[in-house]
C-alpha cells in the first residue's frame, strides 16, 4: 500500500508578502539596491512516523518542483533515483538503517520552491535482521512529512 501525503508549506501571509515584494519591485528598469531575499536553495526535512520498532529500511518517493538532491541523516545509508517530467521532479529514495520516528533526511529544493507542495509516498518498509527482513504488510500508519 502506498501512502500519499501532500504538504503545502506556504501560507497565505507569506504568499501575499512575496507578491507584495514582486509588486514593489516590478515595473522598475533600474536595478534595485535591495538584495534578493529568496535564497537559491532551501532544505526541507523528511520526518518519519513509524508504528513499528525494528524497521531496517524504507523505500519512498517524494515529488515536487525542482528537487535538487536528497540526503539521509547521519547514521543512515541511502540510494535514490530522480526523474523530472513536465516540471515535476520525483525522487525514489531507499534508506537503510535503524529507523525510528523522527527526521530521516532532507531534500534540497530551489529556494523559490521552498514553500511549494511536496508529496511523499511510502512504498516499502522492511524489518531488519531481528525481524527476518520481513516486509511490512500494512503501511497505513507510516507518515513521511516534509517541512522546514
Amino acid at each position, binding site marked *: 500500500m502506498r501512502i500519499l501525503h501532500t504538504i503545502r508549506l506556504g501560507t497565505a501571509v507569506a504568499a501575499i508578502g512575496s507578491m507584495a515584494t514582486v509588486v514593489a519591485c516590478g515595473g522598475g528598469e533600474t536595478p534595485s539596491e535591495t538584495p534578493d531575499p529568496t535564497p537559491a536553495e532551501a532544505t526541507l526535512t523528511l520526518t518519519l512516523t513509524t508504528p513499528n520498532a525494528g524497521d531496517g529500511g524504507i*523505500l519512498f518517493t517524494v515529488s515536487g518542483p525542482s528537487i535538487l538532491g536528497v540526503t539521509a541523516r547521519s547514521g543512515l545509508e*541511502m*540510494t*535514490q533515483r*530522480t526523474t523530472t517530467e513536465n516540471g515535476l521532479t520525483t525522487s525514489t*529514495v*531507499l534508506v537503510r538503517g535503524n529507523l525510528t520516528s523522527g527526521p530521516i533526511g532532507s531534500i534540497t529544493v530551489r529556494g523559490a520552491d521552498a514553500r511549494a507542495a511536496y508529496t511523499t509516498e511510502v512504498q*516499502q518498509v522492511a524489518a531488519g535482521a531481528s525481524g527476518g*527482513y520481513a*516486509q511490512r504488510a500494512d503501511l497505513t500508519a507510516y507518515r513521511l512529512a516534509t517541512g522546514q
Partner: protein
Amino acid sequence: MRSGVRWAGGWGWSVVAVALAVLTLTGGRAQAQSFTLSIHSFIDATGTVTSSPAGIKCTTAKYAPVEPCSASFAAGTVVTLTAVPGEQNTFEGWTGGGCTGVGTCQVTMTEDIEVRPNFVATRYPVTIVAEGNGDAIIEETPEETFGTPRLACVIRNGRPDTEFGTCAATVAYNSVITLIFENNITGTNRLAGYSSECQNPDGPDCKARITGPTTITATIIAAEFRVKSAGGTGTGTVTSNVPEINCTVTSTGVTGGCVKTYVRDTPQGGTTTLIATPAAGSRFVGWSGACTSDPCILSPDYPPNVPEAVALFELLPETSPLVLTVVDDGTGRGTVRVAPGSTQCTFNGIVADDDCSASFAQPTEVTLTATPQFGSTFGGWTAEGCSSAHLTCTFTLSAAKTVSVNFISPHSAHDLGLALIGGATLSPNDRAGLDRLGNQNGVYDLGDLLAYLDRTGQTLTATEAAAVMAAPPAPSAARATRRVP
C-alpha cells in the same frame, strides 16, 4: 511239621514218621500226594543247586539261563540238595528247610519247602568319573540297582560332586549295571558319551558288566547357545553385548564367535541382546528359534530351552544406481562438493553447461557443500530438507534426486538498490536467489536487499554517485548514491 525229618544217621525213624504223616494227611486212606521244593534265587550271586532225586538244577543268577529252580516231589520223598558256587562266588551255607552248614541239604517232602543257598559273589568297586564342562546326574536306573550304595553321581562343571552324590559303590561280580544320563539344572547339557567300559559308549544309557574294579567315564558338555544361519541368500553379522557372540552369518553357515557356553557358577547377569546387521547388498529378514523379535533380547535365565537363534539374511534385489543431479539456477560462480565420493561440481553461471551428477549403488547419506567463488554469493538450495541458511546440506539419497544450487553473481549494493527503485535490472534467477537469502516471500524486495547487504557486508555507499548528486538534476532519469557524513 518237621517231626519226620532227620539227617543221615536216623533213617529208621524217618520212614516211620513219613508213613504216619501220610496217613494223617489222607485221613487214613492210602493216597499219593506231592509237595514243591523251591530254591530261592539271588540276582547278584551265582551258584548252582541240583537235587537228588533229579528235578532241580538251578543257577541262581539274574542273567543265567532259565532253569528249573523248583520241582514237585511225592510226599515222603527225601530230597538231597547239593550247592556248587559259581565263578568268583562262595557258598556260605543253607537257610530254610531245616538245613544248615555248607554240605548237602536233605529234606523230606511233607510240605512245600523253600531252601535258600547262600551264594555270595565277590564285589568290586565301581567308580564314575566325568569329563567335559557340563552338569548332569549319572545314576543307576531305579528299577534295577546293583551298587551298594546305589550309584547316583552328581556332576558339576564336568567334575563329580561327591558332597551331593554317590559316585562310587561296590557291585557284585558279573552284575550288569545300567547307568542313565539325567539332565540337570539348565536342561540343555549334553552327554557326549561314556568310556569303553560301557557296552554302548555313545549312550544315552551305559550297560556294563562288572567283572573287576571298574571306572566309568561320562563326558558332559555344558549348555550352549548358538547362532545359526537360516540359509538365506544374504549375509550379515550378529553381535551382542556378550563377548562370546560376534558371528558372521552367510548362506552356508556361520563363522566367528557364534557359540556361548554356559558353565555353572559363571555369572550371567542381565539380559543378552543379539543385534543382526545386514552386510552391504543384503537385508535382515528376521529371527527364528529362540528369538522372536529384533533385536533379540534374551532373559537373564538364558539360555532358553531353544538353544539356537537362527538369523535369516537375504540379498537385496539389484537396482539401478541412485543418481544425484546438482544443477545451478543462479548466475554466479561456485562449486558444490558431493560426499561421499570425489564429485565436485563447478558452476560458472551458464546454467545449461553446469549440471553434474553422482551415482550411488544404494541408499546413502549424502552431504553437499557449496563454496561460492569470485565474489559470488551463495543463494541457497532448492531441495527438500536443505536449508538455504547453510552452505552444507545433508540428506539420505534413497531415490534419484535433483538439487538446485544458487550462486548469485557479484552485484554492488548500488545496483541492487537501484533494482528496487527502477534504475537497474536483475536476472530472474538472481532475484530468486536474493529472495531465498532474504524474507523468502517469493519476490525480490526491500527485505531481501537488506539481507544481502548484511550478509555481504556491503553498504549503500557509492562515491561516484556522490558526483552525480553534486551535479544539477538531469532532466530525465538520474541516479545517485550518497553517504551521509
